[in-house]
C-alpha cells in the first residue's frame, strides 16, 4: 500500500516542476531542430559563395590575359614596361572607379618578385604598400601565394591583412611574369546574416514555448486535478466503503483490505496485508475455480463461495473481482466481498416451509400449480399427469402455460388472472384445457393469490370434470340424433292420441301429405288425411282398439289423401302407446308410400310377360345354389322349358352341364358382385348348333338373379352376309379401279404410240416436203403450212387426251412430279393459288399405289374446283412414322360432316375405296379455321423418316 501511494505521488508532483520540465524539453528540441536547419542553410550559402568567387577569379584572370595580348597585338609592347604596363595602367585606372563588392569583398592582382609578393592594384581595405610587399612564405596572403604558385581554387585562410577570409585564386598566365588573381570576402561577412537569424529565431521560439506552456498549464491543470480528485475519492471509497474490499496479487497475497473487509473477516486493524487469501476459503477448490475464471475472463461477478472468518465462523459470500494492471506492469486483483449469510439462512427457512407445502402437494390427487411472473414455477405430479408433460417441462422457463388453455376458454382464464392482479378474490371457474399431447379436458379451477419465494404468485387447484361433461354431451347428442332420425327418416312417422288427433308428425310425413307440420299438429287425423269413404270405418276400428275391444294391428295398408286431393297408398307399421295400466292411449305409426312401388311392380310384371326376350329369375337360396322362381312365356318358347314343371328346381338340375361349362360359377359371381354379365353363347344340341343366344345376367333386389336372353342366330347370319357382301363389293370396286386404270393406260399409250407418233411422222414429212418445194410454188407453201398447223393441233390434242388418261409424268418421274404437273395443268385455268410441299425423292410406293394416290389427289382437286369455292389449296406429302401422308387442304366453304360420309358422295367413296385397297385410310372433314382437309394415309415399309 505504501509502495502504491509513493508511485502515485511521484507521478502527480507539483504543477511548477511539471511546467519547467516541459519548457526545458521544448527548448532543447527547438535548439536542436533550429540549429540543424540554420547550419544546413549556412553550408549551402557558403558553398555557393565559394563557387561564385572562383568564377569571378577565373574570369578576371582571363580578362587580364586578354587585355595583355590585345595590347601586344596593337604593338604596345614597344612602350616602356611593355604591353603589361599599359594593361596594368588601365586596370589601375578602372579599379580607381570600382568600389569592389559587399562590405569586405576585394579583387587583388599580385605578382611574385623574387621571394616577395607584390600587390599591383591599390587596395580597398588597406594600403598594401606599407607592410607589403610581403615575403612569399608569409602566413598572411595565403590565397595570393597559391595563385602565384600556379594553383586554382578556393581556400579559407588569412589574407594580406592577417584576416580570415573566403578567397578564390587563379594564376594569370602572361609569358615572363608570375601573376595571380585573388577574389576574397571576409568570412565574418558570410557568417553575419546567419548568426543574426539564429538569434532572432531563438528568441521567437523561446517566446512561443513560454506562451504554449502557459496555455497548456491553464487547460491541462484542471483535468489533472480532476484525476487526482478521482484518485482521492477512490481512496476514500475504498477505505470507507461498507462493502468488504481487498487488493491482492495473482499469487493470492493480500496487499491491502479496507475497514469493512477487516471487520467481515475479524482481522485486527492493519493486519490483513501479507496474508494468503487461501486461508479464508472453506473449500480450497472454490479458490481455484475463482482464480481460474478470473484469469480467463479478467473479471468475475457474484461468485458464490463459503469463506471462513479468523474466529472460525463460516460465512456465505458473493465475490466480485476485476484484474487491473499496475504502473510497473504487474497484475492486481480488486475484490469485493458481499456477505449473504442472512439471505441464505432465510432461504433455508423458506425452503423448509416450501418442502412442507411440496410434500402435501406431491401426494394430492388434485392438480396443483403455482404461476408466478407469467410462468409455472411449480406443478405437482397430478398436474403434470393431467397436462401430459413432465414437471420439469412444465416449469421450464420456455414453457408457455397459456398454450394449455383452449382458445374458447381463454377469456374466462384471463379474466380470472386480471381480477387476481387487481387483488380481487376469484371463485372456482370452469374452463377447458388442451393437454401437451393434444387431449381436451374440462376443468374446474380454484385459484388464489399466495406469496411464493417472497414474490406474489397464483396457486391453482384443478379438478378434472371431463367425464361428467362427456356424459352431458352424449345425452345432448342422443337427443339431437333422435330428432335427426325422425327428420331424415324415409318413412312417414305419425303419433295419434286416443282422440285421434295428430300429436307428432315428421318431415317425411308432411312431405307425403303436403301439409306443414304446425298445420297438422292437433288436427283430427282421420277426417283430415283419409279418403271420405274410409274415414268412418277406419276411425271405428281405431276407437275399438283404443277401448281394448280389438287386438292392435301391427301391419295395415290404406290410402291417405294429400292436401291437394291426390291419394297415396301407405303401408303402415303400428305401435301402441300404453299407460301404466296397460291401456292404449295412442299410436305411433311408421308409414311407407308404396304407391309407386305397387305401380312399378305391376309394370315390371307386364313387361316380363310381353317382351320378345326370354327371362328367368333365380333365387339365391344359399351360397352356390340358384333356384328358378320365374320364367316368362318367351323363355318357355325359346328353351322348351315349361315353367310350372321347373319352378323351385335348382339351376344345375335344369341345366345339367352348366357347371362343367363354368356358367353356374359366372352367374354366382354376378349374384355376389352385382356386376352385369353380358355374353353371347352358342347352344348346341347333339353337337349341332341350335342357335346363338345373347344373354344378360344381372342381380335383382332380394337375392334374386335375372337372366334375360334372346336368340340372335338370324341376326348373326345377316351380319355375316352383309360383311361378306361388303368385302366382295370392295374387292370388286378395287378390281374395277384397276381395270379402269389399265384401260386408261392402254388407251393413253395407244393414242400416243399409234396416233400421236403417226401424226408426228406426218408432221416431219410435211416439214421435209416443204423444204423441198421451190419458192415459186407459193400456193403449195400455204397449203403445206396449213397442213403442218393442223398436224400440230392434232399432236397437242392427242398429247392432252393421253396425258389426262394416264399422265406420262407419273410413270417417268413419279408421284410428286405428277402432282406438280397436275397443278401446272389446273392453275392456268382457275383463280386458285397452290402451295406445294412435296418430297424431292420418289416416295416408297409401288406403281399401283402411286397411281392410287395420284387419283385421290386428282379427285380431291376436282372436288375443290367443283364445290369448295376456295382461293387457296395446300398439298403436302410426307413420310412419317411408317406412313405416307397426303394432305389436301383448301380454304373454301368446308365440307359438312354429313356430306363427308354420305354414301352418295361418290367421289369421296371412290377415294375411300382406293385408300382401303392400299390398306390405308382416308379422312375428309371440315378444317377448324374453315375449308376442307382431305388426309390420305398409306402404310409404307421402313418409312419412318420425314422427307421434305
Amino acid at each position, binding site marked *: 500500500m505504501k509502495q502504491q501511494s509513493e508511485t502515485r505521488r511521484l507521478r502527480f508532483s507539483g504543477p511548477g516542476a511539471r511546467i519547467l520540465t516541459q519548457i526545458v524539453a521544448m527548448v532543447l528540441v527547438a535548439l536542436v531542430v533550429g540549429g540543424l536547419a540554420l547550419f544546413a542553410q549556412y553550408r549551402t550559402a557558403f558553398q555557393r559563395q565559394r563557387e561564385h568567387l572562383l568564377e569571378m577569379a577565373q574570369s578576371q584572370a582571363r580578362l587580364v590575359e586578354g587585355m595583355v595580348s590585345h595590347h601586344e597585338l596593337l604593338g604596345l609592347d614597344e612602350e616602356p614596361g611593355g604591353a603589361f604596363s599599359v594593361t596594368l595602367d588601365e586596370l589601375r585606372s578602372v579599379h580607381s572607379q570600382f568600389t569592389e563588392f559587399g562590405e569586405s569583398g576585394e579583387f587583388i592582382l599580385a605578382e611574385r618578385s623574387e621571394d616577395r609578393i607584390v600587390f599591383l592594384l591599390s587596395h580597398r581595405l588597406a594600403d598594401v604598400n606599407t607592410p607589403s610587399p610581403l615575403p612569399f612564405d608569409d602566413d598572411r596572403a595565403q590565397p595570393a601565394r597559391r595563385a602565384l604558385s600556379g594553383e586554382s581554387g578556393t581556400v579559407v585562410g588569412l589574407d594580406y591583412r592577417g584576416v580570415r577570409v573566403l578567397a578564390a585564386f587563379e594564376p594569370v598566365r602572361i609569358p615572363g611574369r608570375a601573376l595571380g588573381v585573388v577574389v576574397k570576402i571576409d568570412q565574418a561577412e558570410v557568417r553575419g546574416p546567419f548568426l543574426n537569424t539564429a538569434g532572432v529565431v531563438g528568441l521567437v521560439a523561446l517566446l512561443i514555448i513560454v506562451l504554449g506552456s502557459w496555455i497548456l498549464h491553464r487547460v491541462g491543470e484542471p483535468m489533472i486535478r480532476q484525476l487526482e480528485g478521482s484518485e482521492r475519492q477512490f481512496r476514500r471509497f475504498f477505505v470507507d466503503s461498507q462493502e468488504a474490499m481487498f487488493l491482492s496479487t495473482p499469487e493470492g497475497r493480500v496487499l491491502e483490505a479496507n475497514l469493512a473487509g477487516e471487520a467481515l473477516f475479524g482481522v485486527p486493524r492493519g493486519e490483513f496485508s501479507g496474508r494468503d487469501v487461501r486461508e479464508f476459503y472453506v473449500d480450497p477448490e472454490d479458490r481455484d475455480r475463482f482464480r481460474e475464471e478470473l484469469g480467463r475472463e479478467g473479471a468475475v461477478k457474484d461468485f458464490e463461495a463459503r469463506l471462513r472468518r479468523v474466529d472460525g465462523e463460516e460465512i456465505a459470500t458473493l465475490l466480485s473481482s476485476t484484474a487491473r494492471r499496475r504502473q510497473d506492469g504487474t497484475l492486481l486483483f480488486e475484490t469485493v466481498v458481499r456477505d449473504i449469510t442472512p439471505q441464505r439462512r432465510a432461504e433455508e427457512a423458506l425452503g423448509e416451509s416450501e418442502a412442507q407445502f411440496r410434500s402435501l402437494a406431491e401426494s394430492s390427487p388434485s392438480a396443483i400449480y403455482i404461476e408466478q411472473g407469467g410462468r409455472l414455477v411449480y406443478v405437482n405430479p397430478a398436474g403434470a399427469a393431467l397436462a401430459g408433460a413432465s414437471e420439469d417441462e412444465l416449469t421450464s422457463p420456455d414453457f408457455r402455460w397459456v398454450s394449455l388453455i383452449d382458445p374458447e376458454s381463454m377469456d374466462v382464464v384471463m379474466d380470472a388472472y386480471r381480477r387476481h392482479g387487481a387483488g380481487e378474490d376469484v371463485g372456482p371457474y370452469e374452463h377447458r384445457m388442451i393437454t401437451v399431447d393434444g387431449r381436451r379436458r374440462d376443468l374446474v379451477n380454484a385459484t388464489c393469490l399466495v406469496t411464493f419465494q417472497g414474490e406474489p404468485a397464483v396457486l391453482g387447484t384443478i379438478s378434472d370434470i371431463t367425464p361428467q361433461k362427456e356424459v352431458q354431451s352424449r345425452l345432448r347428442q342422443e337427443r339431437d340424433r333422435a330428432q335427426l332420425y325422425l327428420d331424415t327418416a324415409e318413412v312417414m312417422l305419425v303419433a295419434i292420441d286416443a282422440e285421434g288427433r295428430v300429436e307428432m308428425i315428421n318431415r317425411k310425413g308432411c312431405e307425403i301429405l303436403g301439409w306443414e307440420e304446425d298445420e297438422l299438429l292437433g288436427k283430427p287425423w282421420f277426417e283430415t288425411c283419409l279418403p271420405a269413404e274410409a274415414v268412418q270405418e277406419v276411425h271405428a276400428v281405431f276407437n275399438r282398439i283404443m277401448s281394448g275391444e280389438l287386438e292392435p294391428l301391427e301391419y295395415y295398408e290404406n290410402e291417405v289423401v294429400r292436401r291437394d286431393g291426390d291419394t297415396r297408398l301407405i303401408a303402415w307399421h303400428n305401435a301402441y302407446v300404453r299407460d301404466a295400466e296397460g291401456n292404449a292411449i295412442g299410436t305411433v305409426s311408421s308409414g311407407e308410400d308404396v304407391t309407386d312401388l305397387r305401380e312399378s311392380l305391376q309394370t315390371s310384371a307386364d313387361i316380363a310377360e310381353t317382351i320378345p326376350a326370354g327371362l328367368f329369375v333365380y333365387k339365391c337360396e344359399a351360397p352356390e345354389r340358384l333356384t328358378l322362381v320365374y320364367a316368362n312365356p318367351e323363355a318357355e318358347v325359346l328353351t322348351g322349358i315349361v315353367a310350372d314343371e321347373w319352378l323351385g328346381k335348382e339351376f344345375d338340375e335344369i341345366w345339367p352341364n352348366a357347371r362343367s361349362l363354368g356358367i353356374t360359377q359366372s352367374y354366382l359371381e354376378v349374384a355376389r358382385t352385382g356386376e352385369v354379365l353380358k355374353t353371347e353363347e352358342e347352344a348346341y344340341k347333339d353337337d349341332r348348333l341350335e342357335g346363338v343366344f345373347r344373354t344378360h345376367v344381372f342381380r335383382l333386389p332380394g337375392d334374386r338373379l335375372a337372366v334375360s336372353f334372346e336368340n340372335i342366330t338370324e341376326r348373326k347370319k345377316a351380319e355375316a352376309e352383309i360383311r361378306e357382301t361388303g368385302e366382295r363389293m370392295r374387292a370388286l370396286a378395287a378390281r374395277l379401279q384397276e381395270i379402269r386404270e389399265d384401260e386408261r393406260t392402254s388407251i393413253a399409250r395407244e393414242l*400416243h*404410240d399409234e396416233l*400421236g*407418233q*403417226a*401424226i*408426228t*411422222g406426218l*408432221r*416431219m*414429212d410435211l*416439214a*421435209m416436203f416443204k423444204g423441198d418445194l421451190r419458192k415459186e410454188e407459193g400456193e403449195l407453201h400455204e397449203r403445206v403450212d396449213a397442213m403442218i398447223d393442223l*398436224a*400440230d393441233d392434232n*399432236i*397437242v390434242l392427242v*398429247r*392432252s387426251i393421253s*396425258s389426262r388418261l394416264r399422265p*406420262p*409424268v407419273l*410413270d*417417268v*418421274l413419279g408421284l410428286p*412430279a405428277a402432282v*406438280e*404437273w397436275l397443278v*401446272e395443268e389446273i392453275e*392456268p385455268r382457275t383463280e386458285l393459288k397452290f402451295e406445294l410441299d412435296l418430297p424431292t425423292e420418289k416416295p416408297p410406293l409401288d406403281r399401283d399405289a402411286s397411281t392410287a394416290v395420284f387419283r385421290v389427289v386428282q379427285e380431291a382437286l376436282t372436288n375443290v374446283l367443283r364445290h369448295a369455292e376456295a382461293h387457296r389449296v395446300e398439298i403436302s406429302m410426307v413420310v412419317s412414322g411408317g406412313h405416307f401422308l397426303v394432305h389436301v387442304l383448301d380454304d373454301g366453304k368446308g365440307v359438312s360432316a354429313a356430306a363427308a360420309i354420305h354414301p352418295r358422295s361418290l367421289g369421296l367413296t371412290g377415294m375411300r375405296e382406293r385408300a382401303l385397297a392400299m390398306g390405308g385410310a382416308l379422312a375428309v372433314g371440315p378444317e377448324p379455321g374453315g375449308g376442307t382437309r382431305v388426309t390420305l394415309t398409306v402404310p409404307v415399309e421402313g418409312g419412318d423418316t420425314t422427307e421434305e
Partner: protein
Amino acid sequence: MSSQSTDNKTVLIVDDSTAVRRRLATILDQIEGVEVVGEATDAEEAFEMCKDLRPDVVTLDLVLPGESGVDVLEQIKGLDPSPQVIVLTNYPYPAFRKRCEALGAEFFLNKATEFEKIEKILKGEEISIDPLPEDPKP
C-alpha cells in the same frame, strides 16, 4: 463405230415409234459427216447399244415401253458423260425438261415442231435459240 470412222459424227436414235425412227434416220443420213449407227426401240436396247457403239450423239424419246427415256439418260450419262444427248419428245413439259437438264441432257426438243433443229446441231452450227427452249403449254 466412232473409232472406225473418225471423221463422221455417229448417232444413235432411241424411239419406240418406227415411223419416227425411219424419218429421223432419213433426215440424219442426208447430213454430211453424220452417220446413224443404231436405232433402239426401248430403254434396255438403248443402253446396250450405247455401251457397244459409243455414239457421239443420242436422240432420245422419253416415253418408252418399260423403263423411260429419263432412266436411259441417267444410265448413259452415268456410264460416260461424253455423248451429246438430244431429248426429242412429244411431251415437252417443264417437269421433264427440268429433270433431263438436271441429268445432263444437252438439248430438249419438241419432237413434232423442233426436229429440224437436230440437223443444225449435228452440223455443229450454233442454233440461235436456247438449247432448251421454252415450250408451249400442252
